[in-house]
């Protein structure tokens, strides 16, 4: 049903930090992705101009989101694509099930779709007797191992080839044990080819939906996306409602940003642009194309001008790759489908602060993500906003669970901090006392956490204020 339990972040982190193989796998892969991105965007002036353009395109598109969605729906419908709207995850799942049932379909082949992960679609369909088979290699691997993706772009990156060999050998009938990457790929190709041929329905995500022409754009390297959207007689496309852009001509720069950021390529193997189902006279392609547009909290995020920027995300995953925290704990520790910096701002807004607000504390505000986000989402600013909301007692706040962290100790501490830093005499006296007591302070709370790994800082016997009085400095 995709109603999530609050994430047990502390335990997740603890477990992840102990899993040295996991962290080795993740860091090695992220180093590669970071380097590839740097290489493909080697012209510093050019990438900044491109990011500014990406930000402008998204600003404009979201500025008229209802109009563009309306236009998208009209164009798609005129082209023969059936458009469905799902406010919640259960509705979205039901829509997919209904389409399958209307065709008596039991076999679904899936291209990679983060929205379908958000929906937990596979489990839902399986519970209704439908085989929902992942065909993207990374997703195929984690499906065999009954896991969720560890990264937005490379879902199985937390596994090394030994682990994958074992997963294949244990779960695919007649698969020989091999650690050779080409051989592993060949096994996947062979296994899935029959499935493509026989599938009743194919499902995909949507990278960009173009309102001007009613076109669904989907990028991929493997060819499974083309297979899922062309071989079966029915194609279902899933998208979040924030994925619409206005004009076809906006695709080239957006694709350059997405692909360069996600995989460090100039272009993926395939860029699919789908505008209609099979037309009379055409010999193949799905006879029915459905577009399911999912809300799941996005329209609520939309209403706040600052938080709206969360919806600029094009799901490139590069913020994850550059994040020092993600690189230490991997994707699963975040507890929700979207990990990393984007997860820190998206999940609390969708799931509510009580469930997911803790994720916003898992950032040192280093700005590495902001530096590389292709659409210039001010992620650290939004992390601060989520933190503000966590303590806020503003009755007009629209964020679910706002103020959940409010407690008299922290409120009082910060008030006292503000007083001490506004009245210099108090400040000076306080420092005197701390200078005296400093080393003898009980190691509780923050000091306890600090001194577990570090020597406690020593208050200087004389502060800078006192020292400057001795040298020739104008004090004012």
């Amino acid at each position: 049903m995709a109603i999530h339990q609050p994430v047990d972040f502390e335990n997740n982190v603890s477990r992840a930090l102990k899993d040295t193989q996991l962290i080795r796998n993740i860091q090695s892969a992220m180093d590669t992705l970071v380097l590839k991105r740097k290489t493909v965007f080697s012209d510093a002036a050019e990438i900044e101009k491109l990011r500014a353009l990406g930000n402008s395109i998204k600003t404009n598109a979201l500025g008229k989101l209802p109009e563009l969605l309306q236009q998208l729906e009209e164009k798609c419908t005129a082209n023969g694509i059936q458009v469905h709207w799902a406010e919640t995850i259960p509705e979205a799942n039901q829509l997919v099930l209904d389409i399958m049932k209307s065709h008596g379909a039991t076999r679904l082949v899936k291209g990679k779709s983060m929205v379908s992960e958000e929906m937990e679609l596979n489990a839902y369909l399986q519970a209704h007797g439908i085989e929902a088979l992942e065909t993207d290699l990374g997703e195929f691997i984690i499906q065999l191992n009954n896991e969720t993706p560890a990264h937005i772009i490379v879902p199985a990156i937390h596994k090394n080839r030994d682990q994958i060999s074992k997963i294949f050998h244990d779960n695919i009938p007649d698969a020989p044990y091999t650690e050779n990457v080409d051989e592993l790929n060949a096994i996947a190709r062979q296994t899935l080819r029959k499935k493509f041929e026989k599938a009743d329905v194919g499902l995909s995500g949507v990278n960009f939906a173009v309102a001007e022409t009613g076109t669904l754009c989907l990028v991929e390297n493997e060819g499974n996306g083309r297979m899922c959207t062309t071989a079966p007689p029915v194609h279902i496309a899933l998208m979040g409602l924030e994925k619409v852009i206005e004009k076809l001509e906006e695709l080239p720069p957006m694709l350059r940003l997405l692909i360069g950021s996600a995989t460090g390529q100039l272009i993926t193997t395939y860029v699919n642009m789908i505008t209609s189902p099979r037309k009379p006279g055409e010999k193949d392609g799905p006879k029915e194309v459905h577009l399911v547009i999912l809300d799941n909290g996005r329209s609520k995020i939309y209403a706040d001008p600052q938080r709206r920027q969360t919806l600029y995300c094009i799901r490139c995953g590069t913020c994850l790759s550059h994040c020092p925290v993600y690189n230490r704990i991997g994707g699963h520790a975040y507890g929700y489908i979207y990990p990393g910096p984007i997860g820190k701002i998206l999940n609390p807004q969708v799931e509510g602060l009580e469930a997911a607000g803790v994720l916003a504390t898992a950032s040192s505000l280093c700005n590495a993500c902001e530096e590389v986000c292709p659409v210039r989402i001010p992620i650290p600013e939004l992390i601060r906003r989520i933190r503000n909301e966590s303590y806020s007692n503003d009755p007009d706040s629209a964020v679910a669970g706002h103020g959940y962290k409010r407690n008299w100790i922290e409120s009082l501490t910060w008030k006292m901090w503000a007083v001490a830093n506004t009245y210099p005499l108090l400040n000076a006296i306080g420092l005197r006392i701390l200078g005296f007591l400093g080393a003898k302070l009980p190691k509780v709370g923050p000091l306890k956490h600090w001194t577990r790994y570090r020597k406690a800082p020593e208050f200087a016997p004389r502060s800078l204020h006192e020292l400057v009085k001795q040298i020739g400095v104008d004090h004012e």
Partner: protein
Amino acid sequence: MSKQSRDRIFARLMAGSRQAATQTVTLNPMPAKTYQRAEKIDRLKTLMEAMRTEVHITNASGWVEQLEDILKQREMDSLVYPPQTALGEALESHWEKDAGGLPQLIPYETEIEAFKAKLFTIDAGITTVAGAIADPGALILWPTDKEPRLMSLVPSVHIAVLEADSIYSSFLEAMQAGKWSTKMPTNVVLISGPSKTADIEMTLAFGVHGPRELIVLILES
């Protein structure tokens, strides 16, 4: 149910639009990259070869002979092709003269429902392309009723015949010159090489679900 959800979603979005209205930002488009003809061909070839495409620049008058050489180097039983097209007719007349050592020509002439099982056993498919893009190095596949989509996807080898004059400098140029926004077909696919993945340990491996091999014949007139 979908209609009520739609109404509720739109109600929230419209309210959000009113509450947080934004100014339209002027777009600063990227400077267009343009190349001369020779450089376009060279770029396309270099970039596609880097992605393991096999690229042959050949004379427009002798391309079928070139194709014959390519096919004879590989042991292939069958080649699916589009009949009732210039490409198809050229192939048919060549095969009629002498099909020795060549794969069997299989026309894609019925709806897929009657052809799917067969198609999945065919070794190679040959198609034209609507053009290509020099930067970032991709073919523009524009399937039609005569050249169906699965021809370039299901067989393990895809042979694409491209006219050198139809190479554009950039994706944007191709869209604008071709007025795509006024006439998007059922499906357009940019293809930059044979299928690949790096999902396992970021190690690049070719030939996953799409064709394992992509062979491009660039026809120079």
